[in-house]
């Protein structure tokens, strides 16, 4: 396995108390495959990625567990080791390309810098590499555009430039944190296609963080659904979208209008709001918003915290037996068609 995250826990000490941003999270990503991490704001998606990159401030955060990239442990690795890895082996694409590019340096200079630092290339070789990368991500006239500054690029072009910068050293792992959220649908489709094509060429592993299940359906191989810092469901994209098992995943799917849905059927969202990560509800963190708690009884759902089960393959963290879930789903589907 290329990336193995085991029992990752990230706590932040704040004035209001300890924020349990990520709590006992495990997942794996293989080379050449894309893991879609889905969840709402505050579910710990971005914190997890920053932990993989080693970007949390050690003075304010407490991280435990294990993050292994290609067999090497990243947690507790020295600063210089992490610096060698970042941008070289692990690269990141952020949501907002405008704030993550420097306005004072040309696009070419920003891409070339990464290449020079990690590969020790000469100035001119790095510049040629920057032009080559811009060409690969589909920026027209790369020889002209390489001298331009971020403000001269449109939103979609900036995101392409970000991808060019992330891929300049052929990283094994690419983390894309909501890479298309700030973009229009037509541009989003371009960027997702581009990521897919680049992955086919380079065989990198991709972690794609998103809140849009449509994006997951069109790009991810595997899916991890997060809620309040924990994984509540995991499986291949088809398993999770076709036969979702966790009530929270049902809620997410029920919240999203689809172009294929019958019209004038009300959406079936999750009620309530996500919990505070300082006082995470005991037991299953989703129980205060769950419609199926009475089926098991409050003691079960607030008791011991459910773990992802089964341990491998398609699993979810819920005590409700699979058979009962299938019945609930069938009933809901029947209601929709009548």
């Amino acid at each position, binding site marked *: 396995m290329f990336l193995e995250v085991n029992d990752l826990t990230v706590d932040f000490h704040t004035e209001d108390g300890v924020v349990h941003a990520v709590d006992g999270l495990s997942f794996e990503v293989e080379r050449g495959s894309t893991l879609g991490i889905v969840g709402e704001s505050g579910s710990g998606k971005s914190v997890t990625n920053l932990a993989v990159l080693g970007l949390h401030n050690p003075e304010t955060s407490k991280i435990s567990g294990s993050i292994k990239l290609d067999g090497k442990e990243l947690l507790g690795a020295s600063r210089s080791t992490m610096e060698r890895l970042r941008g070289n082996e692990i690269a990141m694409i952020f949501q907002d390309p405008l704030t993550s590019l420097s306005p004072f340096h040309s696009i070419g200079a920003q891409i070339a810098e990464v290449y020079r630092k990690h590969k020790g290339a000469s100035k001119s070789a790095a510049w040629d590499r920057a032009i080559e990368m811009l060409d690969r991500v589909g920026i027209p006239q790369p020889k002209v555009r390489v001298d331009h500054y971020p403000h001269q690029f449109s939103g979609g072009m900036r995101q392409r430039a970000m991808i060019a910068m992330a891929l300049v050293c052929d990283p094994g792992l690419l983390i894309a944190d909501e890479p298309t959220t700030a973009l229009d649908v037509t541009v989003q*489709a371009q960027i997702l296609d581009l990521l897919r094509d680049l992955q086919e060429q380079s065989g990198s592993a991709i972690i794609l963080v998103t809140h849009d299940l449509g994006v997951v359906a069109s790009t991810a191989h595997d899916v991890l659904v997060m809620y309040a810092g924990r994984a509540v469901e995991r499986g291949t994209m088809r398993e999770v979208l076709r036969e979702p098992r966790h009530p929270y995943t049902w809620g997410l799917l029920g919240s999203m209008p689809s172009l294929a849905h019958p019209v004038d059927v009300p959406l079936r969202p999750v009620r309530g*709001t996500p919990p505070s990560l300082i006082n995470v509800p005991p037991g299953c963190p989703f129980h205060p918003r769950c419609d199926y708690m009475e089926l098991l009884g409050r003691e079960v759902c607030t008791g011991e915290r459910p773990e992802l089960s089964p341990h491998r393959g398609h699993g979810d963290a819920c005590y409700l037996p699979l058979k009962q879930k299938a019945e609930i789903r069938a009933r809901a589907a029947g209601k929709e068609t009548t």
Partner: protein
Amino acid sequence: MTEKLLELSGLEKHFPVRGGSFIKRQVGAVHAVDGLDLVVHEGETLGLVGESGCGKSTTGRLAARLLEPTGGTISYRGADISHASRRALKPIRSEIQMIFQDPYSSLNPRHTVGSIIKGPMEINGIDPPGGREARVRELLEIVGLNPEHYNRFPHEFSGGQRQRIGVARALSVNPKLIIADEPVSALDVSIQAQVINLLQQLQRELGIAFLFIAHDLAVVRHFSQRVAVMYLGKIVEIADRESLYEQPRHPYTHALLSAVPDPDLDAPPRERIRLAGDVPSPINPPSGCRFRTRCWKAQDKCATEEPPLVRLDGNRDGHLTACHFPEDQATAGRDIVLDPALKD
């Protein structure tokens, strides 16, 4: 059909662009809205979709007369309000309300929820039976908040709850028309659905008309009875929901629809049209058909002659399209990929 509530005809809004070093002279104009015709009927929801920068929000602000148009007319219930004075607008203000995109910046952080919702009633001198405070509590309950939160401040609420406060504020003056500018796009998926359900319920129960501005085509389809597609300051296609989503005739509408990623794996496979590049600058919009620079069907005629917004052969009533070479009604399932990066 029911009565026309709001009518925009030939509407234009050009924002000046100034340049020069000492004396700032106007060197150009952003053609944010450039000749737009639109009608909102009583009690209906008209969805307005388009990419960023196409002039959706400017249209919304013009419709609420927060902006004064540089050309064309806005009429509300038959009265021309395009250049009406503040005083003349006052009685209309309470009938047209707005819900904004960002629930953080659209509520005054120093005011309590009670005074925020009461504000419009005070300004418009509305005295509901039972008093304003009782009405505020009632409104809080209607939008699904606890009436006891009357004295709390906005920072004590989550994004979804704040958006509900914004809805309660808009409802406080019993409006006939609500202009909702991306009301759910800043919210999380599950909260987004709660707010959409709330707005739909309000429309059913109170018969308020909505001009629903959004970029999410699935949300617009879910919420609107009629949908208008905007591109660079103009309407390129407008139709009932069914007609527009099932038989888009404008290539742009078609491309937009095909770009929406769908979480429903069992949905029938749709063809893919990948548009190249971005929306051109509204300072120098392309001649003729504005979409021609990104259109795969464009021919010489498109550059010289602007296509009128008309009903095409075989289309249902009210389905208008502005295109010289519209899509076939029976859409052929072929892939059209225009992105240079995706060729080969």
